[in-house]
């Protein structure tokens, strides 16, 4: 398509050809989507969460569909950083060499986050990190780090000490003052923040009286959370000077534009990948068309353009 809109954006020194990333945990390491879409159309691929050792995740059932959304309690199941480098990263490097790869990092302790980054620093192909301090599905670590300013700052400081690559910190919506957390991680050297991770939720089967998820509670994603996410992006964008990556329920180009207007520099698409595996490219195209139709020359001009 030939609409002359500059779709590029810059996230903490990383320049992206499109303002759209994949949301961690909803896109694997891109391989599964390579038959269905052209990965080169994406701004960046954000991988599934990677930990130091393999994690088993939580017992099944791990998902429950809810009104306009879904709960998940996957629990960051992954094969560990070593396997990630040998399998996933090697595939990306050989099959999608033009696409920036941002690795989503998880840990139970501050030391584990650092150890994962230390290992990944040996891999030249990686464009940046997204530090997940907001997973509601693990007992130790995860969201616990993202719910207080002090611990969020501590993880950020430690990770910052290990890398000069762009460092994105992923924030939890399960807090009273998300702008305060964002300010704290900015002060410790984060290059960008991404939000929101899933909202802690629950669903109960009234036939069996049991929770629908084996773990009881899980993270809510999808269109149901979009207004909460847009509000939080708006609050955070006013509180920090670093770029904000907005996500939560984006299904269409209009949804993505809404996040940009609220203050996001780029957006990420998650649950929509399950509904329509071509969502990401459809949304990038739609954003370009939207700008073109309105005579907006640079998509970056949308950022924070909401009228007071």
């Amino acid at each position, binding site marked *: 398509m030939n609409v002359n809109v500059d779709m590029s954006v810059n996230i903490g020194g990383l320049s992206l050809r499109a303002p759209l990333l994949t949301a961690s945990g909803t896109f694997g390491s891109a391989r*599964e989507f390579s038959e269905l879409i052209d990965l080169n159309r994406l701004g960046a691929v954000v991988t599934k969460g990677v930990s130091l050792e393999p994690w088993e995740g939580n*017992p*099944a059932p791990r998902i429950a569909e809810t009104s*306009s*959304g879904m709960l998940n309690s996957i629990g960051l199941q992954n094969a560990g950083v070593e396997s990630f480098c040998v399998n996933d990263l090697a595939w990306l490097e050989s099959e999608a060499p033009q696409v920036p790869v941002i690795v989503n990092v998880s840990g139970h302790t501050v030391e584990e986050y650092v150890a994962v980054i230390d290992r990944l620093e040996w891999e030249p192909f990686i464009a940046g990190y997204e530090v997940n301090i907001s997973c509601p599905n693990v007992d130790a670590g995860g969201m616990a780090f993202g719910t207080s300013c002090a611990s969020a700052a501590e993880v950020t400081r430690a990770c910052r000490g290990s890398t000069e690559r762009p460092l994105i910190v992923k924030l939890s919506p399960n807090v009273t003052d998300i702008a305060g957390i964002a300010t704290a991680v900015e002060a410790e050297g984060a290059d960008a923040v991404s939000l929101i991770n899933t909202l802690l939720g629950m669903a109960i089967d009234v036939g069996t009286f049991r929770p629908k998820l084996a773990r009881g509670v899980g993270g809510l994603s999808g269109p149901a959370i979009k207004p909460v996410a847009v509000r939080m992006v708006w609050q955070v964008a006013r509180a920090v000077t670093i770029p904000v990556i907005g996500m939560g329920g984006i299904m269409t180009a209009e949804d993505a534009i809404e996040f940009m207007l609220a203050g996001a520099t780029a957006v990420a698409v998650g649950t929509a*990948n399950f509904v329509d595996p071509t969502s990401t490219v459809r949304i990038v195209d739609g954003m370009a068309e939207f700008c073109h139709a309105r005579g907006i020359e640079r998509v970056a001009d949308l950022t924070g353009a909401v009228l007071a």
Partner: protein
Amino acid sequence: MTTCGCAHHTPPRVLENVTVVANDRVAQGVGLVTFDSPRIARDIQPGQFVHLRIAQGVDYLLRRPFSIYRAHAGRLEILYQVVGRGTRDLALATPGTEMDMVGPLGCGWRIADSTTHALLVSGGLGAAPLGMLAEELAERGIAVTVAMGAPCGERLVGRDLFERVARRVEIATDDGSCGTAGFVTGVCGEMVAEGGYDAVYTCGPEPMQRIVAAQAAEAEVACQVSLERLMACGIGVCLSCVVETKCGLRRACVDGPVFYAKEVVWDSAHDVTCER
């Protein structure tokens, strides 16, 4: 060596716009829908499934996974049981309705070259992924025998197809309204013990598949099962559909839904979530 995964080549997946060409009730609570779906129909192998987006603009978002009962002449047939919102909407779809599906997905039934006589054991809607298999086996000149069960005669599905391609079809109904009274596992247990089969294929409620697997193991016949899990993505990225195997957790949507029974670590937790 075993990897509990998919050892054979699977065709590339596509997102295809499909059109309903027929949709009829075939048994109590069960419909058979036929789609015009040339690409997926051409490539899909027995035991694979599709991920169908039944409706848009509704408050349930996810696709629904369905096995393919038959694939021929650019068309796909799906047997479905009405259990919730999605399958209710599917039952209402009239010819001409457009939907889209991702497929072919998953790892289907393995057919060893040495197979001479296969026993297919179907419980209720378990016939869904076994129809295509029965036709494929017959086409390859492999003898097919079927044991099928249902709560009552009104709810038997797939009988016509099985009677057309199988040399013998045994029926069991819980209430005795058709065939032998009792569970299909009773009939199947006797048949497996008689011997003569070199492969057992089964699909149905998970407790039933577990019993069939044990009967086949006892008779030392290789047995494959087709497992259902709740699925979000259907293509291997979300990790919602995990099955515990002797090699660790595997994804039902890419490493399955068909597994060798001896590789599965059975867990009764799934009896509740996936029972219909």
